Structures are given as C-alpha cells and as structure tokens.
C-alpha cells in the first residue's frame, strides 16, 4: 500500500509502463486550424470550421443550413480542395451551387436514397481519407431516425477525422452528436424578405396588403438567419462571447428558372449584421 502521493504515482507509472508514456503529464491539444465558412458573420461567431474535427449544424427546414453549406463548398473548392457531399435524400442542387461559385469538378457527390447508405458512405469516405471537406447532409432525414443512431457512430466519425486535415460537417434538424462535435451551430429562420420590382406608384394602385400585391411585382430577396453557437471546443473566445448571443444574416435569394438564376444572382444580395441589433448591407 503506498504511503504517500509520490509512491502512489510511481506505482501507477510502473503499472502503465510501456503502454502510456507519461500518465501524469498534461497533454495540451494541438492548436486546431480553422478555415472560413464562407459567411463572414458565421466566421466571426465561430472562428470558422475546425479541421480534423466534427462540426454540427442544425436547425429546422428553411433555416439557411444548405446555403451555409454551399458557401463553404464554394470557398473550399476555390482553394482546390477535394470536397465530398453525402446527400442522404438526394436534395442537392448543382445548378445553384455552381452559380454560388462551387467548382463542381472538385466535388464528389454521393446521392443516397436512404439513411443507412449515407452512414456507410460516410464511413467509406472517411476511411479512404484525403478529402479536405466532407459533409453528411441529413437535413431531410426524419429526426427520429437520426436520434436512433448510436453514439458510437458519432465517436467513429470523430476518430476517423482526428489528426487529419478533413473538415467533417453534419447537417441535421437537431443536434445529436453530443460531445463528439467540436463545434455545434444552431441556425434559425427569421424574416423572409421580398423586394418589389415595380415602382411604388404602380403598387399604390393595389392595396397595401401583401396578399393583394401582384405576384409579378415582387421577388424573393432573402431570408434572415439567426445563428448561435451551442458548443465550441475550438475557439474558446467565441464560446465566451457568443454563447448567449446571436447574429443575424440575410442570405441572398433568387427567383425564376435556372436561366434566370444567373440574372437573379446579380440582383440578390447578402445582408449582414455584426450584432443582434444592427444589420447592414454588404453586397
């Protein structure tokens, strides 16, 4: 029986000799590299997506999750990184992604038809390695189904990307990865912005009600998105400052058929706000 702490420590060290090099030495995590998400406000809030870690983005439908994904893909592919998108419900729209600047040649798109295929495809991709950005898109998978996914699957994903340069992004409707996620970002939809294309004099002929306004007189301009960080093991500063805070951003919209997307992109803008209260147009 050890009499003091020193004896106890030496006994433990002897027992673990050969298996653990220095059991009582604190090993600090190596500095994690973070990269831009493609949206300045999200970068301010989170510090960017961490490499070699699992990032979880969740929120209800129509909360800007896919828009954030497409922005990130555009930035990653612009840096000639190989990206992979595991699309659990085959919902990705390459036309709009290309319009948003995604270099589609750099993107491996796996169109799955069920949840299990998506999980197995993610396992295969992470085991294969080499991708800079891997996204598992579970946005349209029923939340009950994702909830049933055992925790060891999330641990497996996290372990697969540890000590690699891969950004693993999971998009879903609610947070499920728990402590396996290094960054958990919650998105919520805000106001929808419609802009008018007709002069006010013309609109004045109609009543002020939105329902009575002629449909050709308005365009889908954007959506308010509120983002908040629920967990961040990467950027402690942002965790301290923004845990309770939220930012608002308006994601530019477009209307019409694919050929009008390109025209509409010129019209669509991106509104941004550095704090909760203030918003300003940056594009």
């Amino acid at each position, binding site marked *: 029986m050890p009499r003091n702490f020193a004896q106890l420590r030496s006994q433990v060290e002897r027992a673990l000799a050969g298996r653990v090099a220095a059991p009582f030495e604190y090993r600090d995590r190596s500095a994690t*590299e973070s*990269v*831009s998400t*493609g*949206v300045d406000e999200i970068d301010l809030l989170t510090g960017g997506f961490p490499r070699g870690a699992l990032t979880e983005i969740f929120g209800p*439908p*129509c*909360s800007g999750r*896919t*828009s954030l*994904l*497409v*922005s990130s893909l555009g*930035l990653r592919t*612009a*840096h000639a*990184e*190989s990206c992979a998108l595991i699309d659990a419900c*085959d*919902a*990705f*729209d390459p*036309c*709009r992604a*290309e319009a*948003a*600047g995604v270099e*589609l*040649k*750099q*993107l*491996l*798109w*796996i*169109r*799955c*038809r069920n949840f299990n295929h998506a999980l197995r*495809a993610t396992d*295969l*991709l992470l085991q*294969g*390695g*080499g991708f800079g950005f891997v996204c598992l898109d579970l*946005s*349209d998978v*029923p*939340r009950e189904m994702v909830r049933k996914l055992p925790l060891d699957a999330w641990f497996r994903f996290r372990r697969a990307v540890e000590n690699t*340069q891969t950004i693993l992004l999971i998009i879903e409707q609610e947070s499920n990865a728990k402590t396996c996620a290094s960054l958990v970002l919650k998105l919520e939809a805000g106001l*929808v912005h*419609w802009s008018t294309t007709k002069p006010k004099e013309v609109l004045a002929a109609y009543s002020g009600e939105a329902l009575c306004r002629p*449909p*050709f007189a308005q365009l*889908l301009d954007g*959506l308010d998105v509120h983002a908040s960080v629920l967990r961040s093991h990467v950027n402690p500063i942002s965790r301290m400052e923004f845990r309770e805070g939220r930012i608002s*951003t308006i994601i*530019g919209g477009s209307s*019409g*058929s694919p*050929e009008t997307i390109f025209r509409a992109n010129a019209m669509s803008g*991106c509104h941004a706000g550095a704090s909760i209260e203030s918003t300003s147009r940056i594009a």
Partner: protein
Amino acid sequence: MAFASIYVPNFILQAILCTEPALRGQAVALLDGTPPLSTVVAINDFARQAGIEIGMTESQANQFFSAGKRCRSRACEESLHMALLQMCWSISPRVEDAAADTLILDLAGLHRVFGSHKNIARELMRSVSELGLTVNVAIAANIDVTLYAARGFTGITLIPAGEEAKRLAGLPVSILSPSVEILETLERWGVRTCAELAALPVLQLSERLGQEGVRLHELARGARVRSLVLAESQLRFEEEIDLEDAVEELEPLAFLLGRLLNELCARLQGYALAASAIHLRFTLGDAFEKEPVMVESTSTAKSAPALYERTLRLPVPMRDPKLLLNLLRLRLQTDPPQASIRKIALAAEPARLRTAQNGLFHRSFIDPEKLELTIARLANLVGSSNVGSPEVLDTHRPGALRMNRFASAPVEMKVRRKICRASASSNAEPESKPQKTVFALRNFRPEWLAKIEVRENRPVHIHFRGMRGKIVAASGPWRTSGDWWQEEAWRHDEWDVDVRFDSTAMLKGHNLHWEMQDGLFRIYYDGLRRDWFVCGRYD
C-alpha cells in the same frame, strides 16, 4: 561476342504446373487429343516412376493413377512463352524466339551490367525461377552451339570459344533436328553422336546427303555462323485461362483473377508500364436458374450470352495487382455475369506510369489509386450512377445534369504559387470569398404532386402529401419552356411561395413529417401535364 540460350525442358507440362503449383509434388500426365482418343503427351518424373509412358491412351493412364491428369492448354503455353520473352527483353534487347521452349539472347555489352558470363547465367536462372520454371542455360560464342548445349545439358553450361566441337561431341545427332530420312541414314551408318558426324569427310557427306548433310556437319562441329533473328516486341498484355470446371461464385473467380493480374502486372513492370484500362472477357457456360421451371419443350434454349465483356477504365495508370483485383471484384459484385464462367481472359492497356511532383507548402491530394477504390466501393453501395462529380448541362431544362467520374484534379501552377505565397506570408489560410451567398434550394426528387388553389391568377392555397397550407406570399410566374421539337418537351410556370401550414387541416393517413414546417417552396405548373408540382424547398 557471346550468346545465351534458355531452354525449358518439358515445356507443355511446366506451363500447366505454373498455373497449378499444387501439382508439383505429385505425378502428372498431360493429355492431348479429342476424347476418348486423347493420349499422354507429357509426364513428369513422378509419373514416369509410377509407370506412365508418353503415348499411352487416357484409359491406359487411368490404370496407374487417377489424380494428376490434365489436358494440354495452348493458352497457358502461349502465356508462359510471352512471359519468358518479356523476361528476356528485360535483360537484353536482342532476343531470338527460336522455339516455344527456347530463346536466345545476345549478351553483347551485358558484362558491364552483370559481370562475367557466369553471373549472367545465374541472373537468367534467377529471373526464370521467379516465373516458377526449371530451365537449362547455356552460354557460348556461337548461336547454334548455345541452342544445342541448352537442350543437351542440364543446369548452367559455359562453353569457351574454340571448345564448341569438343563440348558438343557427346550429344546425340538427333539433337540437331535432322529430317527423319537423314536420321535413319545416319543410324544405318552407325553415326549416333555429334563427334561421329563431325569426323565424316564433308565432300563425301555432301555427295550422299546433299546440302542438308553439310549443314548438319557444320552444326556438329559448332562451326556454323549465322545472325540472330530478332523477335519483335508486341506490346500485348493479355492473360487467359481455360477452366475445366465452370466457376459460378465470386470467391474462386477472384482467386483466378488475382493470379492472372499478378502475371499481367509482372509483365507490365518489366516494361516500366502500368495499366490504364483492364478488359475483362469471360466465356460463359450454363446460365443460372434462380427457380426451377418446368420446361415442356427442350427447344427453349437458355438465353445466356456467350460472352461477358467489361472494361475497367482507370483514372491513372496503375500496376498494383491487389488494388486492381479489388476494383474488379467490386465491379463484378455490381454487375455479375448471369452464367457460369468457362474461360477468363484479361487484357491491359499499357500506359506510362504516373509521376507526381508534390510541393512543400500545399496540402497533399488524394492518392488516385485509393480514391478509385473508395469510389468503386461507394458505387457498389449506392450505384455507379449516383457517385461522381455533377456537371450542369448546357440547356435550360430544369435539373439537367450529368454525373462525371470524380478525379482529384491537380492544382494549377498559378493556384499553387498563390497558395504557397500566402502560406509563406502568414500562418492564416488565404481566403478568397466566393461571389456571393446564394439562397440554396433543396430539390425534391421526384417532385411532389400538389393541388393549388388559384385566385386572381395567383396561388393562395396548397395541398400536398396530406398537408394543406396557406400561401402568404408568392413570386411568379417565371415561365420557361424548351425542347418543344422533341418528345421530352417542358413548359413550366415557376413560383416561389411562402407557405404557412395548417396543422388542424392535415389530412388523415399521413404521418406528421418534417415538411409540415412552414417555409419557402418552389412550385411550378406543368403546362403539358396540366398539374402542379412542388420541386424544392429553400434552405
């Protein structure tokens, strides 16, 4: 000047033993001919000790033993011969293809690489042993002397210049391959060895046997001089195997494919080449029957194709047999042949091996071999048409896209330099924002059929998937049409709508689902089908 000759004794039997190494320790007899008239054409020492003789019929051979009988395979012989040629070319560029079992090499200049003639002979023996063969090697200054020495003496034979006649003296005359008539004449004369033939006077020999007699006399003395007839390299990388019993399952098939790929890759390695594509060809036998079917008439022939041909295109030239085998296995799993396999043929398209120069300051890219294997596994999981890089087609048709093969593209030099400069100047990653943040649309594939209530030329209520919602804002219609000159024409009136669902109005029989939540949808009216559809949701 020196030449080396490689002779493979019992070539047709060794060709079989190379493909079936398990037979090496047991008696083997090789049969040739049409059953039941097939006869024994080759035997090994074990079979000889057991009492088998060449020329026996199959039934006679069966009396001695039942195991170890094989049919002669000309495909295996050709394959082995090609492998031997490749090996010889890897040592010397000047090779004569003297016979199926004999090759002659010009050793001029090889002493700088290998050293003495003895070392060259050992190198030849070592290279041939890697093919699993037992051969004789002879080196001499005369082409024909090396040929007959290799056929006459076992192991390594080195004949110094000037001693050719002396060394060939003990060999039988038959080794010179005279015609049957001349051989009988020589036997009647009592001439049985090369020394006895060389001792005959040339003039009298010419009077009695003609020019053939003079030629044999020169050969027996080792004095005939001729040039090497060079074999031309045909860069055909093909391997095939005939199967006695048809293969029906993937595991034994993978075993055979692995063996063929090993040989194919070894040959490619000899030329410092790799395969850019693998052509797979199976000759099929009986078709599989999943369920027993009562067939009344025998005239209903099975509709299995006679050949199964597939091509495995590789993104970069590869030469790793294990990797290629894995890719072939995955391909066969997704697209298996519908009948048993009787013959396997593999052919590789040769290409130069990939070379890559990586930089110090940019991230390494995906290993193409590993990537190809990953993509093959993904294709096996979700289907090959569902994996790849999307390409938006040059058309206005909504959702027109094509899936291309994904390849991790090498970085352009300009981009590399830019990244390198930025990385060197600061630790932070150089960021360049894309053009703008676009409001992304999530497609519903296939689109959902919807019922829309239109009032004053605008949608006001929507019903789909058992839900009813109120459209609080709408933008449209955005009219597109095209391909009216084809059968697949389209005419859409698209709308962006903001929907608020009424939970109390949800129709019975449908589960509460995520799409129940309010949001922005893209809907369209199909002018040709005269129906409304929900094609996506903004997110």
